[in-house]
């Protein structure tokens, strides 16, 4: 190679001279500008993803506005209100003094929930209760896409402005993971627009399969419960109130059931979707110990508190699924997995309780498209 490169210093023609100069220059440029070239390459990749996210964000906005118009039949154009909701934000309480943090967090979440419901009702006066829930979730998805877009754009523009490789690297490194989540959110648009069951609903669906056909009552806000006799035990099966898109208040439901049965409850079995690790099968069912519930942690805290107060063991049945599948329309494998989850719940109850015991079975997750 080196003798060949040495030929560059022996040009035989004018064009040869030009080519050799260009070849030499490219080496010199690369020595000094390698990092800048790498920065520009990364910026270009981020730009490509940003264009895609922008397109999805716009689609989310368009779908939300159109669905509000179609279902809610507002007297005026709802575009400004939907755009305002998409820019709405939520501030978590300070953790400088952690004492009482969960209570403060819960209070803020309740305020947010009530405000969102009121805002959506105002812009969609003709929507039913279920439809309002679906619209709330639809606009939340559009809001999430908006936040993703703004954050990626922030790093892209800041990186472009400073040409600092470390700023661009931060977004470039997490971009593949972010894009997977964004893909999931974009599929959720279709699900919430039409009211289709989603991957997160497998816990609610499992509970629905156990409680279907038994008398129901609303035990807490947006939470339905049925008493189901099973192998000599009484199962207090609960899930969020479908078929609208809601996760309900499982902690309130569990606490109320424990209070009502004063010491008779011998176990709490929770069922929920859980993120699978790469290599695990979609729809794999496994069981464990603890309160299986996602979200902010407030509901989990409340359930653990209630279980501790009544000295009731907490058991969990997890249905493993990919992060993209969680908010996308329900996959066939996951639907089939709910039958396996029903069997897993029955096995846990059979093995860990005695005949005559009362057991709480709580199906956790968004119940869009799933009744009870």
């Amino acid at each position, binding site marked *: 190679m080196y003798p060949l490169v040495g030929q560059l210093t022996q040009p035989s023609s004018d064009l040869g001279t030009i080519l050799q100069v260009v070849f030499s220059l490219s080496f010199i440029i690369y020595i000094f500008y390698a990092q800048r070239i790498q920065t520009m390459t990364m910026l270009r990749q981020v730009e490509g993803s940003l*264009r895609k996210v922008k397109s999805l964000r716009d689609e989310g906005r368009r779908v939300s506005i159109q669905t509000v118009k179609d279902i809610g039949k507002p007297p005026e154009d709802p575009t400004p209100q939907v755009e305002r909701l998409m820019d709405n934000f939520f501030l978590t309480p300070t953790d400088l003094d952690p004492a009482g943090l969960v209570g403060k967090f819960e209070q803020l979440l309740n305020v947010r929930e009530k405000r969102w419901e009121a805002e959506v009702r105002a812009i969609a006066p003709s929507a039913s209760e279920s439809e309002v829930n679906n619209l709330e979730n639809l606009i939340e998805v559009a809001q999430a896409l908006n936040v993703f877009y703004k954050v990626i754009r922030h790093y892209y523009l800041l990186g472009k402005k400073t040409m600092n490789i470390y700023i661009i690297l931060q977004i470039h490194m997490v971009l593949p993971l972010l894009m997977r989540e964004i893909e999931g959110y974009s599929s959720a648009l279709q699900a919430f627009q039409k009211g289709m069951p989603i991957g997160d609903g497998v816990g609610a669906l499992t509970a629905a399969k156990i409680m279907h056909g038994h008398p129901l009552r609303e035990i807490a806000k947006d939470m339905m419960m049925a008493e189901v006799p099973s192998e000599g035990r009484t199962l207090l099966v609960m899930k969020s109130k479908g*078929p609208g898109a809601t996760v309900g208040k499982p902690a309130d439901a569990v606490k109320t059931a424990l209070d009502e049965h004063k010491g008779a409850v011998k176990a709490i079995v929770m069922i929920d979707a859980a993120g699978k690790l790469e290599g695990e099968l979609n729809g794999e069912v496994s069981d464990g110990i603890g309160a299986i519930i996602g979200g902010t942690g407030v509901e989990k805290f409340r359930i653990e508190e209630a279980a501790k107060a009544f000295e009731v063991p907490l058991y969990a049945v997890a249905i493993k699924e990919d992060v993209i599948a969680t908010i*996308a329309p329900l996959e066939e494998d996951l639907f089939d997995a709910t039958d396996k989850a029903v069997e897993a719940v029955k096995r846990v109850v059979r093995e860990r309780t005695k005949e005559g015991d009362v057991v709480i079975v709580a199906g956790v997750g968004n119940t869009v498209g799933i009744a009870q």
Partner: protein
Amino acid sequence: MGGKSRVEYGNLSLSWITVLAVIIIGIMSLFSLYLGFQAYGSNNADLANTYIIIGTAGFAVMGYMFFRTRAVPSPNKLNASKVDVVTTLECPKCGTKKVRDFETGDYVFRDDVPCTNCDGRMVITRINRRKKPEKEKEKVEV
């Protein structure tokens, strides 16, 4: 994001600078290869090798630029992914089972859909995505 100063060609969206760079590098690389083959003809193997390396490197750069450009998809290809969802209905009275495309208003355990075979009401027992054709499974077990 420079969306307006782009050349659309099929699925590709190229910036003018990229197009210009690819053309210049392409011409120079071709010329370099031409000179390389000419030098071979003149029995000047060392010089010929140099020109051919320069030409090949130029084409490699072009390929890299093309590859990088493909990383930026065309805006008309960027739509939210939509999936096929199917609803399964079963009649508890006559046992009829029916699978159709999802319709707005469908939900699991909805039980007021008239049966197509008898005077009963069908229950929606399943709503799920239509399964995609099986892809070749990963061959390596880890």
